[in-house]
């Protein structure tokens, strides 16, 4: 967790250092329970493969949650997320191994807006796949 970022200290075009977030089958089971989304493609390899997926895939919202964590950890506790949107461009495939998969988040300060708001452009990758596109958050900073 970082300290507090202030609006005046942020520069347009600044890079947000990349962070790796691990994801295993256990992550998905926990997310099923906490979110109430028990779609079988997130926990049943047999059914996931039978509907044409390479293996069990992560909930898109789990991936988005990692992007949210990346934003709020960067922005600090006094910041407020005003807007947050993503497109799920490729599934995060989670193999049945101890390591599972990794989601790597990075970002750029796209624009400084009015009212102390800052727009961030986010990139999320798992392996070579870009798993989120058009991923953007607007945060209000102190």
């Amino acid at each position, binding site marked *: 967790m970082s300290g507090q970022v202030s609006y005046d200290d942020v520069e347009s075009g600044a890079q947000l250092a990349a962070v790796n977030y691990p994801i295993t089958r256990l*992550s998905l089971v926990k997310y099923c*329970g906490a979110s109430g989304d028990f779609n079988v493609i997130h926990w049943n390899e047999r059914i996931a493969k039978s*509907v044409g997926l390479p293996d069990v895939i992560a909930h898109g919202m789990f991936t988005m949650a990692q992007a949210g*964590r990346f934003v709020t950890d960067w922005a600090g506790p006094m910041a407020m997320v005003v807007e947050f*949107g993503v497109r799920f461009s490729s599934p995060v495939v989670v193999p049945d191994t101890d390591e599972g998969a990794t989601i790597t988040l990075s970002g750029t300060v796209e624009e400084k807006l009015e009212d102390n708001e800052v727009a961030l452009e986010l990139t999320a990758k798992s392996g070579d796949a870009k798993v989120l596109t*058009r991923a953007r958050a607007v945060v209000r900073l102190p």
Partner: protein
Amino acid sequence: MAINPDFVGKAFPPSDPYEVSRVKLAEFADAIGDHNPVYRDRSAAQEAGFPDVIAPPTFPIVISMASSARALAEPGLNVNYAMVVHGEQRFEYARPLRAGDVVTAQVTISDIRDVGRNSLMTTTTQISTVDGEHVCTAYSTLVERGGAA
């Protein structure tokens, strides 16, 4: 079979009230691996200027998804849920949800269209407190793979 476009504009009545609890917020934060104390420690949340622990930015999906599921189950809509994946998601926040909020979700089917072999449906969900304070709007696009084939 494609998702039935006749349902565009269909507005569903607000959901039953959902009470946001500290235990649920901590469970959700644990499940996404987020250790931020503002999601589980009331004094940390108060230091950050909130009256109680707050929800992570993606938590409203727990509330909006239950409403979307209701829309998906609408007879005649023709959605094969096993083929459904999440296409896009966006939230606009007036403020973070927090423990103690009692909210309802009102979902409207805002768009249905075919893109290539897939059928896409977008829902717009307004999450407001039972006192009428708007907290968050969630826009979800679901993709039925092969739905338009």
